């Protein structure tokens, strides 16, 4: 087994920074921990789940997709040079974050390919880490992941009781990373792993849930949730799997930028057609769409569940809507 000490892990970050890679990891930003570029290994903060998921590495909060400028009489449109996207290494993503790109790859490339996402994805290496923290909002086990799920990571670290990490290069990218910095890793048996935290929500039968959803497009449950949902986008924005976006022009009619940025299906005007027709005109339809999209539609279309059980939406919901509780309820209802 490959072992890396905590010190060397931080050293590795320093080296990668020096190599002019974009190194991203959990870092204290103001009073919150976020995934941000690390400028030194010492900045890596592994004791809290970042408030936002690591999806922004591939799917930024906001990005330019083109710029336009009227020159003389003619409009000129300029593409974004995606070749300049940096080589990136993501550190410290627990399975619920590290696992999200492999879910999103499907929608981003199923026919038309979103090269903004894919280029960033191509140029990134994910160093995942087994999760030994967790609180009563966590439910990764419930949706089929676990604190030690390696899938999604290129290199996977398991915290050991002596403070070092057991490393498993899951993919070629991971192997390459290890190979390039061999002297930081050591071969050995390693200490005992740090135990995982128990989760309040037990494993759910996602097939059963999906079936229930299929049969309960209309259900009082949706109205009950919608009664209190205030229609903000907090749950969607911090979710590792939500990927809705909006496209807007910013600037004048003569000179400006077209930008793609996060959007949320909970917003009242999300599906509002210019004609005034709004297929999801009330909050229960919108919340239903959120659950359906995660646990039915996405699975129908791409064979994957659009949720990693990170629990962020539960912690962030202004009105305490608890997706794990809803899933448990459905699980209990479903035959």
């Amino acid at each position: 087994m490959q072992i890396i000490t905590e010190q060397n892990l931080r050293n590795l970050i320093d080296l990668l920074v020096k190599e002019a890679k974009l190194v991203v990891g959990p870092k204290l930003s103001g009073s919150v921990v976020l995934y941000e570029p690390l400028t030194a290994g010492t900045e890596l903060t592994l004791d809290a789940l970042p408030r936002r998921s690591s999806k922004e590495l591939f799917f930024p909060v906001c990005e330019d997709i083109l710029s336009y400028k009227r020159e003389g009489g003619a409009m000129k449109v300029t593409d974004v040079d995606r070749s300049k996207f940096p080589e990136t290494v993501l550190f410290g993503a627990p399975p619920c974050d590290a696992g999200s790109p492999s879910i999103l790859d499907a929608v981003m490339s199923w026919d038309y390919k979103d090269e903004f996402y894919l280029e960033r994805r191509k140029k990134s290496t994910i160093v995942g880490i087994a999760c030994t923290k967790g609180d009563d909002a966590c439910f990764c086990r419930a949706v089929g992941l676990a604190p030690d799920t390696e899938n999604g990571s290129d290199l996977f670290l398991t915290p050991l009781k002596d403070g070092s990490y057991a490393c498993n290069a899951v993919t070629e990218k991971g192997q390459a990373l290890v190979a390039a910095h061999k002297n930081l890793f050591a071969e050995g048996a390693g200490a005992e792993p740090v135990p995982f935290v128990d989760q309040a929500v037990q494993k759910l039968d996602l097939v059963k849930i999906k079936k229930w959803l299929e049969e309960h497009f209309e259900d009082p449950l949706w109205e009950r949730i919608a009664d209190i949902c205030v229609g903000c986008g907090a749950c969607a924005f911090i979710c590792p799997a939500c990927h809705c976006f909006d496209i807007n022009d910013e600037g004048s009619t003569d000179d400006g930028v077209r930008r793609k940025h996060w959007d949320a299906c909970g917003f009242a005007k999300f599906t509002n057609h210019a004609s005034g027709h709004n297929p999801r005109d009330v909050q229960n339809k919108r919340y239903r769409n959120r659950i359906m999209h995660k646990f039915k539609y996405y699975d129908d279309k791409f064979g994957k569940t659009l949720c990693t059980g990170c629990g962020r939406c539960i912690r962030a919901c202004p009105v305490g809507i608890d997706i794990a509780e809803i899933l448990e309820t459905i699980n209990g209802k479903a035959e």
Partner: protein
Amino acid sequence: MNAKANKNQLTSIEPAYYEAVTEAIRKEAVKILKEDTVVGVVGYLPGRRKGTATPALVTSVEEAEKLVFSPACVNNLSVYLTKAKKGVLKQGKVGIVAKGCDMRALAGLMTESQLQREDLFIIGVVCPGVYGFGVERTGTLTEANIARKCRECIVHMPEGADVAAGTHAELADLTPEEAEEMARIEAMPQAERWAFWKEHFSRCIRCMACRQVCPFCYCEQCLCDKNRPQAVESSPRPAGNMAWHLVRAMHLAGRCGGCAECERVCPMDIPLNLLNRRMAKELKELYDYEAGLAPVEKGPLNQYKEDDDQSFIK
């Protein structure tokens, strides 16, 4: 005087207090539902996780008997009454559980023609305070886990409610953290203040939670959703974020009742209530106005006096 004496002694508010309030709320809610005074009651139900509660609209006696009040009942429920959000009022008279700070929002909404007093049955809560964020939620409220806004609360007693649940209880000798933080920022050099806010606003992802929980953000079309002309860029970039929070603070000036919900729900921990408090402080100093203490005819920015301060004008 008794209350005063009480105040000085309390170092914690025990679960028993909340249980008594809970009982009173349940009793009243059941009563008004049974008597058909209201079609529903907006209150709190316990959450799945320890030390949490969620808002709920209950319409039956059985549900009403499950209503609770605890330090976890942080939400300002008045947001459910404004039509752009929920419009529960459409169905008839509604009961609502309201803390003192929530009452300020109700008064403000009445001032702004969004609510009619006669459409509401207000179950006021004599509230000693609620939990802050990221704190130990044990059921007991102490200086260690009380919300920042509650430290400077001036509306423990809900004025103008139909009934009040609870008796006076307050924690003693709380340091006014919010006022201190505001003073600290005000004392910063200008560039440092800018850096402080810039850093905070750059984290904003425009999830609009601040807007959606705000009782006063009841516009059908928010200025930040309007993009021709675009006063506020809709994309979550530093420029638009700054503009959004400034515009919002300006729109709330003279209206915000200080429930601090925007700050509580911000997933990025932006201290939004500081902006609102700063505006409130200014309007108090300039025009001796405090929002939401009672429904009034006009807010401070909808009226003027001929001799208003103009020392800043050349």
